[in-house]
């Protein structure tokens, strides 16, 4: 850009700046109203007792103390943590699958790829219902087990506190693994074939090829999926839990977002629910900070 000395040109520049702001004005204004303002309200309401429509009453840190004292929040948070611990499964298993499919193309490739995207077209609500029917006491799983003479295994799968959360995680994985594999497949076909051929000519075995050629070539994809899965933990698990167990049995599968929903929209403890929301925000900031730190360390 040249520096203009005449004021007429300058004025035109200022005018064009103002006009350029118009392109972003609507989305910025909407995001301000829908996200920013309520976000700061959440923080301030988190210090009040409030039913949503009454006048909020300032109670200081009482909600925060209650949050840790009652134990429900920490219990729910531990379930989110369990889900987060399963995240590597989302990243690694589809990667392995994609590499196997990519290196051994067969006549079923197209059909496989198409089938693997079908779960993505189904909502999490529908997937949740379908799997609840499968795991139900009178469901197909138990029918098969009974017919195989394994009657002692035919119980209410989602009613077992120790098992329900794992089954929910498995259900979520069923919906996701296909499209993640498809992403990896696309990433693999983006790797320069000459590099793969060169590795072969140089006598690299499959393990060396995997570690030294495929993983670095897929690095941006892997980072993307990791970020996506960690965000999904808090954003998307609500649907499965709400549909499949509603947090039960007892509170064995309650996650923080279900806890917030129940407190805020069922018991109308909106002040307390805002406290939960603020805590979720703090946790996400914490996670994001560490993610960025780890990534920048790796370069």
């Amino acid at each position, binding site marked *: 850009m040249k520096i203009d000395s005449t004021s007429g040109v300058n004025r035109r520049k200022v005018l064009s700046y103002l006009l350029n702001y118009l392109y*972003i004005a609507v989305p910025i204004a909407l*995001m301000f109203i829908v996200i920013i303002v309520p976000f700061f*309200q959440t923080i301030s309401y988190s210090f009040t007792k409030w039913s*949503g429509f009454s006048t909020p009453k300032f109670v200081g840190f009482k909600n925060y103390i209650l949050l840790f004292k009652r134990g429900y929040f920490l219990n729910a948070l531990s379930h989110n943590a369990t889900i987060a611990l399963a995240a590597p499964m989302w990243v690694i298993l589809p990667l392995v699958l994609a590499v196997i499919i990519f290196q051994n193309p067969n006549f079923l490739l197209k059909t496989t790829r198409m089938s693997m995207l079908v779960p993505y077209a189904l909502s999490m609500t529908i997937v949740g219902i379908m799997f609840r029917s499968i795991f139900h006491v009178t469901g*197909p799983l138990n029918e098969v087990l009974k017919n195989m003479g394994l009657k002692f295994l035919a119980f209410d799968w989602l009613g077992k506190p120790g098992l329900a959360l794992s089954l929910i995680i498995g259900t979520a994985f069923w919906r996701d693994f296909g499209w993640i594999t498809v992403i990896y497949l696309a990433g693999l076909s983006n790797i320069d074939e000459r590099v793969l051929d060169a590795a072969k000519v140089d006598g690299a075995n499959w393990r060396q090829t995997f570690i030294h050629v495929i993983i670095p070539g897929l690095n941006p994809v892997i980072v993307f999926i990791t970020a996506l899965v960690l965000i999904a933990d808090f*954003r998307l698990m609500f649907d499965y839990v709400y549909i499949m167990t509603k947090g039960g049995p007892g509170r064995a599968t309650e996650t923080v977002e279900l806890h917030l929903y129940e407190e805020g929209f069922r018991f109308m403890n909106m002040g307390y629910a805002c406290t939960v929301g603020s805590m979720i925000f703090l946790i996400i900031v914490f996670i994001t900070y560490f993610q960025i730190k780890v990534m920048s360390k790796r370069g």
Partner: protein
Amino acid sequence: MKSSWIGKTLISLISISLIIICLFPLFFAVINSSKTEGEYATSKFSLPKNFILFEKVKKIFSLGFGNYTLNSIVMVATSVFICLIFSSMAGYAFDKLEFPKKNLIYFGVISMLAIPFQAFVIPLFVMWSRWGLVDNLVAVGLLHATLEFPFGIFLMKSFYHNIPDELIDSARIDGANSFQIYYKIMLPLGKPALITLGVIDFFYFWNELFISMIFLRSNKVRVITPAIARLQVASRSGRITDWPLLFCGILVSIIIPLLVYFIFQKKLTKGITMGALKG
């Protein structure tokens, strides 16, 4: 390994089991949707004896599912349209136009992705009901679109980044103003990214449960995903769950998504991967 007979069989087996794993639950829902409760209880893996799907579908529609589908279409169309228009405008401005504090504002937009929905939903709901916007399909469509702006703007900006600046400069020399450049060059050139974003958003908005459930409460404006969820909650309180009816509801509710899926299948694959490869 490629030429060996065992390897080939193994790979085929893996492919076949993948196909079965991915399609079985849907297949199961399909074959059981046309059974009576009694038939479902005794035989789950056989084909239905008497074909009563039509009656079941009629029952589903009598529960309002036709209306719910229309509501979903209105809401999703609103949000996809708003999201595409403003994301492409803002993406164009952030990549090709100049204005003070551009990068700072863009950073602000992107960092909104880090604010989880739970951290602002409650005051937002109270605000929405104070303004009388709860139970308003268009308003909730606007809400959905707004929550997708950070992703949409990011996607459009990174797509426009690959369009050479020279093209815009030459149009400017020819006397086009910035809006003409947007309307006549950037919008048509951005078509692949717009279709991609549109398809991703379609599935996201259509399948979303939390917001749609909270902000659309009355029966008149209920959309399809919360309706299915409600159907299962209602059936849960009874001692016997009418699973076939639920399956039938599932079938009715996935007709449109499956249609969109088959029409845009290639775009969808490309779209999902574009986000990943650019990221």
